[in-house]
């Protein structure tokens, strides 16, 4: 092959490589959510209540313990799983039971869910149970407006009133 033709071919191949890099470094664009959808992210890190109630030790039991270990109450370490229920317009979109962390199941329960929902105004109801009986005694229900692309976070912060939407 003569040299000018080879150089021309080289230029074409370099150009094709550059075009390949340039195109796929940004294209085709990706839609992280379906059109006209918003996203609810449920994320919580909460230690449930003790699974079993504390029990007062008898005098005999206390006597068997070393002096520095004589706590009046025996409190089993295991915690109850945390249950979270999320309903959107009366329809369940998440029902989670998060087990406590740790070998003795005495740590915090951690949960995370990604829930794409249609954009618009919805009636959102979040209920949380953290005792052994599974009583949903923490509830938050309100109308939320979710424009397309909005990310709504559901969290649980006891110091800020419990279930938090932000």
């Amino acid at each position: 092959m003569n040299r000018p033709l080879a150089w021309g071919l080289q230029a074409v191949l370099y150009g094709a490589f550059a075009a390949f890099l340039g195109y796929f470094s940004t294209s085709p664009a990706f839609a992280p959510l379906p059109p006209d959808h918003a996203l609810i992210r449920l994320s919580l890190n909460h230690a449930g209540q003790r699974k079993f109630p504390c029990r007062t030790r008898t005098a005999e039991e206390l006597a068997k313990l070393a002096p520095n270990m004589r706590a009046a109450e025996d409190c089993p370490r295991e915690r109850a799983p945390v249950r979270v229920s999320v309903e959107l317009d009366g329809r369940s979109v998440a029902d989670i039971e998060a087990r406590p962390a740790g070998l003795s199941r005495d740590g915090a329960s951690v949960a995370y869910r990604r829930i794409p929902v249609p954009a618009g105004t919805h009636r959102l109801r979040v209920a949380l149970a953290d005792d052994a009986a599974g009583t949903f005694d923490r509830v938050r229900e309100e109308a939320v407006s979710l424009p397309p692309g909005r990310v709504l976070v559901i969290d649980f912060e006891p110091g800020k009133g419990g279930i938090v939407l932000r």
Partner: protein
Amino acid sequence: MAAPAIALPAPGRAAAAVERVDALFDAAFGQGLNPLRHLGALGYHFLWICCASGIWIYVGFDTSATGAWASLDAMDRGEWPLGAFARALHRYSADALVVVTLLHLAREAARRHYAAFRRFAWLTGLFALALLFLAGINGYWLAWDQLAQWSLTATIEWLDALPVFDGSLARNVIDDGQVNDRFFSLLIFVHIGLPLALLGALWAHVQRVSPARTAPPRALGWGTAAMLAALCLAKPVALMPAADLAFLPARIPLDWFYLFPHVAMASLGPAGLWAATAAFFAALAALPWATRVPRAPAARVNLANCNGCARCFADCPYDAVVMVARTDGRHHPRQAQVDPMLCAGCGICTGACPSSTPFRRGETLATGIDMPQAAIGELRARLESRTAALTGTPRVVVLGCRWSAPAATLEDASTACVEFLCAAMVPPSFVEYALRAGADGVLLAGCREGDCEFRTGTALAAERLAGARKPALRPSVPRERVRQVHAGITDAAALRAALDDFRAALARLGPRAADHPHPPKRQESRHG
């Protein structure tokens, strides 16, 4: 056709397919500069460009979570010298690095370059590939724009699928308050640490080759650098709006070279992506054991004929030969020693050994380092018998390589072929010996230029024939009667054409016997 005594695995169909693709690029670049034959070296080249541009960006980069985006935005507006250009160069060189790395992987897999003595390089290469993707994805987070936010969140959701995390990592990116300077510093340290780990993996990757080709030919290096520069000017990279964890953009201009796993996760889910990733790497890592690529017999040192000259040590492309203290009491201080686990069985050491000269006296030729599957003495015997049987003119001896174009089909009344394990297994003295034995010309056939099955064989053979490397073809040998041809396994027609052209040139020269009528005289070696 004289075949090696022990059958070796033949080059596969995939290797032939690779050669056909190569041929397209050969037409433009020539065999020596074909970028497909320098993919590993190009990978290093792009990595250096990426590192250099990254360092320049880092100098002007605000490493805080709140200032990172603004500092890059300022670069794009020209407030940092060459900032926008460096950002584009960083991006595109990283993309090019992924492309050449994956091509390198596919090419070596197609040529079954993953088993036996190549297993270590294969496995360390896979490890480097994983580090490359981790470093590349991590790099996108530092811009802290909406693309970074989406990529970081997707990665964390992927990691959170592991039972050890179980959703706890996502707490770091649920709202803007969580992405603080401390967390952002961690991301930056990771982006420094992962490329350093990648460099370490690449160092290990080339430990069992010698010399390692970590720089492409100069023309190719400048050509690809100019291409990247032109791309940076034509299409600068653009930041997305600053990250806001309360919103997701409708469409994200994705870098598919690195961020495609996020898209895959959108379809497969985090657990599915873990399964796919594990299956991909496990399948590739198992290749050396799952496929039966036999190990070629290793070279054997014959101490009685080894004077410790270290030419085999210098020429071995896989560092399989080391020089150690003499063990047999002879006056030479060193001797060659072969590590069978590293030996490729290419015979390049035999071609480098001065004791391999066929002019040595004796019915059997023994050399200092020999191949069990193709002993040099047997090859000399074949050369003598085949050359003596030639009746036509001009008489041509083809010294072929079993990994290149099949030379057996060339045999006829005026053409004798002797197959070696590699073009560089041919001691240059064999060329002279063939001419003295009655050949009018010697054609040395090997793999395409820069494409030697054993990395350096064709280049070593060329240097020896040119007298630039020992053992060298003696100056008294008429060069017009010696020719080297580069022909891959799919180049049988090209080899035939090269032979016809050579034969025509020899016919114009006249018979060799007329100017050198004596048969070869065997002498005692001066090197034993």
